[in-house]
């Protein structure tokens, strides 16, 4: 992260949240912009090069405070599934992540009008009734909590609004917000875990497995509902051994009754995949054999089925009752 320089939309120049975030970043230069897309969507950028010097953009979202849930993710059995984008792009740089192909630059956009999101969601609930809202698809919110208390404010909202279930998905171990908020049945903290060998290879800058397991334990101890996401499952020739050892390790420190699980194999929008490869990502992930179904890059069906069945049975062996599967 390159914090010497921060881009800020002119419209939020005197906003209290802007001043609060700036206090934490302490940049030596502010560049005033009319709209965050001027920076985020700048053409002709080298994405990977800019990732090394990722910058923060502070902005105000004018509309589209939520979207219909993506078919690339599980709706966890909810009829009205939505997601929102409180921030764009991520602090981490997971090699399998679709964000590398989604925007022209990797700069981190933080929308500071969180209240507008909450008010729009309140109106949505009035229109459609019970909803399931995933909070952090295009970023990792808990990792950004040090800049703005998104998680805290949404959990407080969910505590008082029972017609919403929120999911906060993360690879971060920084979940101090659980000590400042109350758990409730409609708040789900999802922790993405991967075997160490996969993590070392494809998830640079993310907290270690041990740190993440400790965060899971803390969340359970504080009585939060917890989901463990084994997603994406990455295929390697010896994946069965790798994942068996990994599950043994994970469920030594976490009791199976305290969590639900979700699983899904690696998949990505075809256009994003092509763009990431064009941008020069050297990961072997982008040179494997895939099939394309519904404009989505996936492992061939036989591999997919084999991996899902294997992981599902391994989890069942360890008495995980609720397993959500993305196929």
């Amino acid at each position: 992260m390159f914090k010497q320089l921060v881009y800020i939309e002119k419209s939020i120049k005197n906003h209290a949240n802007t001043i609060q975030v700036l206090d934490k970043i302490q940049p030596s230069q502010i560049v005033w912009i009319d709209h965050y897309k001027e920076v985020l969507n700048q053409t002709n950028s080298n994405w990977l090069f800019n990732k090394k010097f990722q910058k923060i953009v502070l902005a105000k979202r004018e509309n589209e405070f939520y979207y219909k849930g993506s078919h690339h993710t599980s709706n966890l059995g909810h009829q009205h599934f939505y997601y929102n984008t409180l921030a764009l792009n991520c602090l981490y740089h997971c090699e399998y992540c679709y964000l590398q192909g989604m925007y022209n630059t990797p700069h981190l956009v933080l929308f500071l009008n969180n209240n507008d999101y909450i008010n729009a969601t309140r109106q949505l609930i009035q229109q459609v009734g019970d909803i399931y809202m995933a909070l952090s698809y295009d970023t990792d919110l808990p990792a950004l909590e040090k800049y703005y208390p998104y998680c805290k404010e949404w959990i407080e909202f969910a505590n008082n609004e029972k017609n919403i279930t929120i999911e906060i998905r993360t690879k971060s171990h920084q979940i101090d917000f659980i000590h400042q908020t109350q758990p409730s049945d409609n708040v789900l903290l999802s922790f993405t875990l991967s075997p160490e060998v996969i993590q070392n290879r494809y998830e640079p800058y993310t907290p270690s497995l041990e740190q993440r397991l400790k965060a899971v334990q803390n969340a359970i101890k504080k009585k939060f509902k917890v989901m463990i996401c084994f997603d994406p499952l990455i295929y390697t020739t010896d994946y069965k051994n790798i994942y068996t050892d990994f599950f043994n390790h994970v469920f030594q420190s976490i009791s199976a009754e305290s969590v639900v699980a979700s699983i899904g194999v690696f998949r990505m929008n075809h256009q994003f995949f092509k763009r990431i490869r064009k941008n020069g990502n050297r990961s072997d992930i982008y040179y494997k054999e895939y099939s394309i179904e519904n404009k989505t890059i996936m492992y061939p069906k036989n591999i997919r089925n084999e991996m899902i069945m294997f992981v599902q049975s391994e989890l069942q062996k360890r008495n995980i009752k609720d397993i959500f599967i993305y196929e």
Partner: protein
Amino acid sequence: MTPKLLVFAHPQEAAPFIEKYSCNTLFQLKTIQCLYSENNQIYFLITSGGAVNTSVALSVFFERFSTLKNNILCFNIGIAGSFNKPIYHWHYISKITNYHNNKSFYPDIFIKANYAEIMTIEFPANKKIMSVYPDVLFDMEAFAFANTLKFFVQNHQIHCIKFVSDNDGVIKDIHELLSHYQKQLSEALNIIQDIENIFTTKLVQNADTEKELKIIIESLPVTQSQQSQFKKAAVYYLQHNGSLNQIRQIINEHHLHTIKIKSEKNSIFRKILNQLYNV
């Protein structure tokens, strides 16, 4: 060493830089002058003032030296006015705006420096215009420089360094200005050096290995873009304890040289890359 292109509107702005490095004239076309310092791999391009002249000169340069576009670092260097910024200081430009249509270019910033924003205007900015944007610098070329270069190179290769010459659109003493410009040259050179340092981490440490790798790459029956993809994969392979002989072996195993059908060749090429990245 990374090749660099230093672009100036006027010979007086270029003079101290040219003086510092020993250069030869490469070409002259009407008012466009291009010099080259072979030892330092620096090209000096003097364009004449204004947006059109800058665009034309850059197009002429890259038409002649198109092979440089993948790694050359380009700098627009010169003087600029500003209502508030103190005179006789260098600034590294963080935002370039066209005064007439308000479009902006945001250079990829990756060094800590004395930043400033600049506005490019088609006529010399007077005090009244400058006072509306008091902290901004004003010049007549930067936006055209960036916008034209976007056609030839990527954004992280485009940089702008400006020296504040006046606070009211009037240069009172040109000799004094040029004297300060020259005296503080090292500040501009430090910015250039800092940026270059980001790019000069050697991928392959051994010069012989690099030379041999180049021969292997050039012998591959693939497109230029595939050659560049292959180079990245091969460097990755070497950095992970692979050897040149093993690279040769991988190429031979796949019989890339004997395949005539393009789609088949592409598929085999991808398999080779996969193998190199899976070292």
